[in-house]
């Protein structure tokens, strides 16, 4: 790759890390005009998001910065859209993520989604207050390898075992790994519910999912 092309892709990365929408717009156009492939530009933005995720892990960035980075990336993708053909795929697999029925809290879920996207997963966000039936259907429709469930209210934790039952009934037991989180969820409760993973924080949850994805990749090779 030419030095000029690499320099432009570096501009893509750095403008994303600095949440500079105008600079990202210019860098994306410049990258395409100087001969970069669309996938290279997407990769540069993903690398920028990865740097943002690292800064979050290290305590330099916080949730508002994750949101700003996500918004900046959306703008970059929008600039790139006229040059895109088809859909890009993710090597990490697909994760369906949702807040369970009866619960509308979404901040933790949204942080988890941002970090999962940053880590390279394709994420299907079902939103909040979603029934077990709709969750199972979404896992099936998207051929998801991971299902992330969030609940904050103690009264909605009973949805976890219910969803596990429905997954089994749909023949998805063992095919999709289920991870749960939310302030009132404890490790003991997660174990009792029969899920595959529990995380106290979004960051810890992403690490678990990355390990699962690596295990899956190792099996395939």
């Amino acid at each position: 790759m030419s030095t000029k092309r690499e320099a432009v892709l570096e501009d893509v990365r750095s403008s994303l890390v600095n949440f500079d929408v105008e600079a990202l717009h210019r860098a994306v156009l410049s990258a395409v005009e100087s001969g970069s492939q669309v996938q290279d530009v997407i990769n540069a933005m993903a690398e920028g998001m990865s740097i943002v995720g690292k800064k979050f892990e290290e305590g330099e960035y916080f949730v508002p910065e994750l949101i700003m980075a996500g918004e900046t990336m959306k703008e970059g993708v929008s600039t790139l859209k006229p040059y895109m053909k088809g859909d890009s795929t993710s090597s990490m697999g697909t994760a369906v993520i949702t807040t369970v029925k009866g619960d509308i809290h979404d901040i933790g879920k949204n942080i988890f989604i941002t970090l999962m996207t940053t880590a390279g997963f394709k994420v299907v966000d079902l939103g909040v207050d979603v029934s077990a039936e709709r969750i199972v259907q979404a896992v099936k429709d998207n051929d998801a390898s991971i299902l992330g469930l969030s609940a904050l209210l103690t009264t909605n934790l009973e949805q976890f075992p219910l969803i596990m039952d429905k997954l089994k009934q749909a023949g998805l037991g063992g095919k999709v790994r289920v991870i749960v989180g939310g302030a009132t969820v404890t490790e003991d409760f997660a174990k009792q519910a029969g899920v595959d993973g529990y995380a106290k924080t979004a960051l810890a949850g992403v690490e678990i999912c990355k390990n699962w994805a690596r295990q899956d990749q190792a099996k395939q090779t």
Partner: protein
Amino acid sequence: MTGPFGMVLASTFERMMAVYEGRDGRGVVFQPRIKHWFEVNSAAGTLPDKYQGMYLDEVYRDLDVAPREVWVPGTRGSAGYLALKIEEGDDIEVWSRGYRASSPEGEPQDLVFTEYRTPKGSISQLERVTEHGASVYNVDYFLKDLKDVEVMKYILQERRYLWDERRYEWGKKRFGDTIPLRVNLQRSPLMWLFVGLMGFQRAVTMIWRHPKEMEELLAMQEADFIKMLEVCRGKPITELHFGDNMHQDMCSPPYFKKYMMPFYKRVLPRVKEMGMYSTAHWDGFVGQLLPLVGETGLNGLECVTPLPQGDVTIEQMNEGMKGMFLRDGIPAVMMCPWTSLEALGDHVRKLLKLFYPRLILGISDLTPANADFERIRFVKGIVEEFNEAL
């Protein structure tokens, strides 16, 4: 109030005053929030037999714990009795209608649509009523863009607050001799914007992209807050409470330093000068914010939630809150039947040991609807043992 051998015991009122004043009140007050548990189980028909047909006050009396009713500005779903009234500007109309609609799941849901019509334009929000009608949450917020922000600024400019003497007198008659009067105020401007007016993600994006306009709005919110505060001046209020719902994932340390700290520093000297104590509701993850709270000038924090529900240990809470008092401290999840009684007992004893005398014990944030309600009596028993040993 006398105990065995004619020993004079402090009343709940006196003990709470001692907490505010930083004295040893010769005993801890247990003041759990049970209103949500009571309302949901009443609506669902699942109240224990002995509480069927009772009012909330009577349940508190039966438990023999301090009531947690407060006098608040008053919105749908708020707790307590109202001592402040909101009066909108003369040329502002407020329209509201409730209706039933299908959810994406196909089930019926109850919604409340509210619209403000002003000479500057209209804004509207949509709220959904929770399953048993005990609360509402925003499906859609009033502020969606800069045009809405301008309308809101006008509403805030024209809004005023009045002291509601009749309601206050009625609340005082019920609780005035039992607990010191506390008034719940609006959230601090940034948290009000996040939770009540715009929603978190949109607000972060707007502050980032339109800093000037959003800072003007925050300044108007602060001016509105001061109006509310000033109505309390000279009234027999002991505690002014900021219902912030603080959580570091929303209000990060940089936001806290930029927006919250200056706000507290401008407003709290006024509260102090009015001869009142100040508290704020910190019910989320707060580990990164606790090191900053000492500089705010707040007298106490409510609902700080330790592990396993929150993100801090009791020791970290105690360290971060030096010089302040704590209201609550028992994670709500510990009231649920799947956590061990032994863990709950150990937790309560540690709280008492570390925080007394700067503690009003309660549940962070409230008693869950599916709690093992007898655990309230279990905790009360531990508190009584502690008080007797003093």
